[in-house]
């Protein structure tokens, strides 16, 4: 309980405090903060206990006030920036919200917050990954040419967001969930639009209205819940099995947050935000609400058509989003699509893991958060230090920035190759699906998606690597990159975590024969050492074979693209899937 208070309170204290701390000490402060919250969350996770508590009536009034203010703010932004969709949705939300507040009962006698294993797991992800990204964000935002107050504001929003995230994964009340959901939307909106240029504002508004739809789903769910005389609490939903439509509506809100097709465009648009934002909100923590919600609600729709359609839809997104990523050139957009893709996998897995195999999903979520955070931080470093944003500009990057590039490669490898965390997540998923194959024909679909989707991710990442690695015959020496700089702290920690991910998994109680781990680790890490000792000193050098011709022969990335027709079909499929989930709930 105290630890939870620290997790929620400390960010708020720091957010207030950082306005007085001199900027150059900020990173150290953040580092200490990060250490504390990581420790707290780890302690919470390792001491399994479930406890719950409620807020007083003062707080429930405050919640209503904040909610109303928030919706009014959205309304104002929508009207001010003349975005029809935003203000219409805000009006709808306002109407629904007042309807809810007028009809909701005052006391259902349920706890507002329940902290269970799932919440504590999410705390670890949010706090360890999130706070380290904040440490990095101090360096990043310092490189922007904006006023110091704006910089502080940026950090303030980031830290407060951590607090909100800590609350949302612990909340039990749907109304609180709605408020916090909207708060994350607000954070997303503020941070995407942070650079205040035309494209940022456009994309921020897009993220806003799409996420508002999620809010609308929640409100409708609550109203329906009241109509069916169900308490608007998560545990209430779980008790009453007939409330499938309520559950599916909330799951849909989660899917919107997780940017599943057809709502994928907001996450892609979010890539114009500063890199730490993409890292913290749009890959490591906020979007993880999608698998979180699905997993939380999983018992309610186990073996129903809703669960099946969410699973099929998730595996569909796993494949399709990866294919979309293949056509992109911007590094962050590629990461964005691969995030959507992996979220699809997590969502699909969340519906089937059940209680016994939750750890598989934990492995996927946790190591995905770390891998993606690492990759996004490196994208930021490349952008600021090496002025590289697109993968087609990455020509010979290994030569120019060996350290960052090796870390990118580790980031890629951890998602696709043995013996790293996310890879094991996928491996265990395959095993799990295989062992349950006979129970349900839709598992075949998931299995196919797992097989194909992994292959697509391999294609996607190692296609990116094509230019990273290419190097002229004549330049042998690698440029040196300063290894100990403040931006490198968080990436180092992430890299370290990833490299020992297999041991972490073993430590977490899952059995993997050590020979596999050690063998493949050896195979991978022998390469840099071998290069270091320089075994081929006396070997003659040759130039590349160019058919005997002289001159420059350029190489380039491969790109793939969908035709328009297919894109439309995919969009339609996404919409149909959402309708199917809702209909499944109704029936």
């Amino acid at each position, binding site marked *: 309980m105290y630890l939870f208070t620290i997790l929620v309170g400390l960010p708020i204290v720091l957010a207030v405090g950082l306005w007085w701390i001199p900027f150059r000490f900020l990173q150290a402060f953040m580092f200490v903060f990060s250490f504390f919250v990581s420790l707290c969350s780890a302690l919470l996770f390792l001491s399994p206990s479930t406890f719950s508590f409620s807020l007083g009536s003062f707080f429930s009034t405050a919640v209503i006030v904040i909610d109303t203010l928030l919706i009014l703010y959205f309304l104002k932004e929508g009207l001010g920036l003349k975005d029809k969709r935003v203000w219409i949705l805000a009006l709808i939300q306002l109407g629904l919200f007042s309807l809810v507040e007028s009809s909701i009962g005052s006391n259902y006698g349920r706890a507002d917050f329940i902290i269970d294993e799932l919440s504590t797991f999410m705390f670890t992800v949010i706090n360890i990954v999130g706070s380290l990204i904040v440490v990095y964000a101090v360096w990043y935002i310092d490189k922007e040419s904006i006023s110091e107050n704006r910089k502080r504001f940026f950090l303030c929003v980031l830290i407060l967001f951590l607090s909100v995230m800590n609350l949302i994964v612990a909340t039990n009340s749907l109304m609180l969930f709605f408020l916090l959901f909207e708060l994350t939307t607000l954070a997303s909106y503020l941070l995407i639009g942070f650079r205040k240029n035309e494209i940022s504002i456009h994309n921020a508004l897009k993220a806003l209205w799409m996420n508002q739809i999620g809010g609308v789903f929640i409100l409708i769910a609550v109203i329906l819940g009241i109509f069916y005389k169900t308490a608007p609490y998560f545990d209430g939903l779980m008790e009453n099995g007939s409330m499938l439509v309520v559950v599916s509506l909330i799951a849909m809100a989660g899917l919107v947050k997780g940017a599943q097709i057809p709502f994928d465009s907001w996450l892609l648009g979010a890539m114009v935000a500063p890199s730490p934002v993409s890292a913290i909100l749009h890959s490591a923590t906020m979007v993880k609400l999608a698998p979180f919600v699905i997993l939380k609600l999983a018992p309610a729709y186990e073996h129903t058509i809703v669960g099946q359609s969410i699973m099929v839809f998730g595996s569909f997104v796993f494949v399709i989003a990866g294919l979309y990523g293949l056509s992109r050139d911007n590094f962050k957009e590629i990461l964005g699509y691969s995030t959507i893709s992996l979220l699809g996998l997590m969502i699909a897995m969340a519906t089937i893991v059940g209680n016994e195999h939750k750890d598989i999903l934990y492995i996927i979520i946790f190591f995905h958060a770390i891998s993606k955070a690492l990759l996004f931080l490196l994208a930021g470093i490349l952008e600021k230090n090496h002025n590289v944003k697109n993968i087609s500009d990455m020509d010979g990057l290994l030569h120019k920035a060996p350290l960052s590039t090796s870390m990118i490669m580790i980031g890629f490898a951890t998602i696709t190759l043995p013996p790293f965390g996310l890879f094991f997540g996928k491996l265990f998923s395959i095993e799990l699906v295989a062992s349950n194959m*006979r129970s349900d024909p839709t598992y075949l679909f998931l299995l*196919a998606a797992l097989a194909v989707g992994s292959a697509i991710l391999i294609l996607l990442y*190692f*296609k990116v690597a094509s230019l990273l690695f290419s190097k002229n015959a004549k330049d042998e020496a690698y440029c040196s990159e300063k290894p100990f700089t403040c931006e490198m702290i968080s990436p180092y920690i992430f890299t370290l975590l990833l490299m020992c991910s297999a041991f972490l998994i073993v430590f977490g109680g899952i059995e993997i024969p050590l020979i596999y781990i050690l063998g493949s680790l050896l195979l991978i890490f022998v390469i840099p050492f071998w290069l270091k000792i320089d075994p081929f000193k006396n070997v003659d050098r040759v130039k*590349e074979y160019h058919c005997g011709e002289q001159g420059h022969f350029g190489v380039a990335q491969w790109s793939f693209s969908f035709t328009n027709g297919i894109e439309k079909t995919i969009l339609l499929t996404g919409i149909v899937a959402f309708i199917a989930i809702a209909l499944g709930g109704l029936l």
Partner: protein
Amino acid sequence: MSWFLALFAPVFGTLVSGIDRVVRARMQRRLGPPLMQPFYDMFKLLDKRPMMVHKLHIVLGVMHFMALWASIALFMFGGHLLYIIFTHLLSVIFLILAGYSVRSPYSHLGANRELLALFAYEPILILMAVGFYLTCGSFEVSVITSNSPAIVSMPLMFIALLILLPLKLKKSPFDAPEAHQELCGGVEIEYSGFFYEVIYVSKMTEIIFVYALVFLFAGQNILLGIILVTGSFFLVNAVDNATGRIRIDHLVKKVYATAFVLALLALGWISYV
């Protein structure tokens, strides 16, 4: 026995390659090279002056061989089939990165095609592993080889594997990744001398890996295993001699349209019928 098989896998592979060359030549009404020709080639390569483009390229090439050998060793010691497939994947990724690491358009195109080929066959290998799990109840090779032949319960999966064979063995019609008329060998083009020897040996080792997968379908029945391997060996050579090379985009489409569908059907068959 496992030690012996694992250690000498490259040698067996070379021998199979020698037989392969003779058989293919006879199918083309040629006399063909002597049986030991691949060994002579290897000794010849050892004699050459070593030359290289740059270090990383060589190191990745050597690691490709090591990883491949490791996956064979895992196989021979009866390891977990999924790990074996993924260690093999690791080795292919090393080769692809090696191809990318030199600034040669052929090498790059070769690596790109290799990657697309990987995209085509990797899912099917995974599905195949799941198929073994469903028939034999375990992913362990040692369990699979002590069970009754899996080919009986999933003949379609075996056909899917047969479709993959030319792809893995770089034979027509699926040899686009190293098409010598277009890419002069693709990823292996920049290797020479001793370093090409390494790539050459790993090609030989790949043969053993592939036929080991074929052998797996026979379970404990060694005689059936030998029949399956020999049969598929001749089939692959016959197909190689009866087809041209199809383009890489066709390759991906055809493999998905045939082998992938067959693998799914096989799984569906085992699980639900």
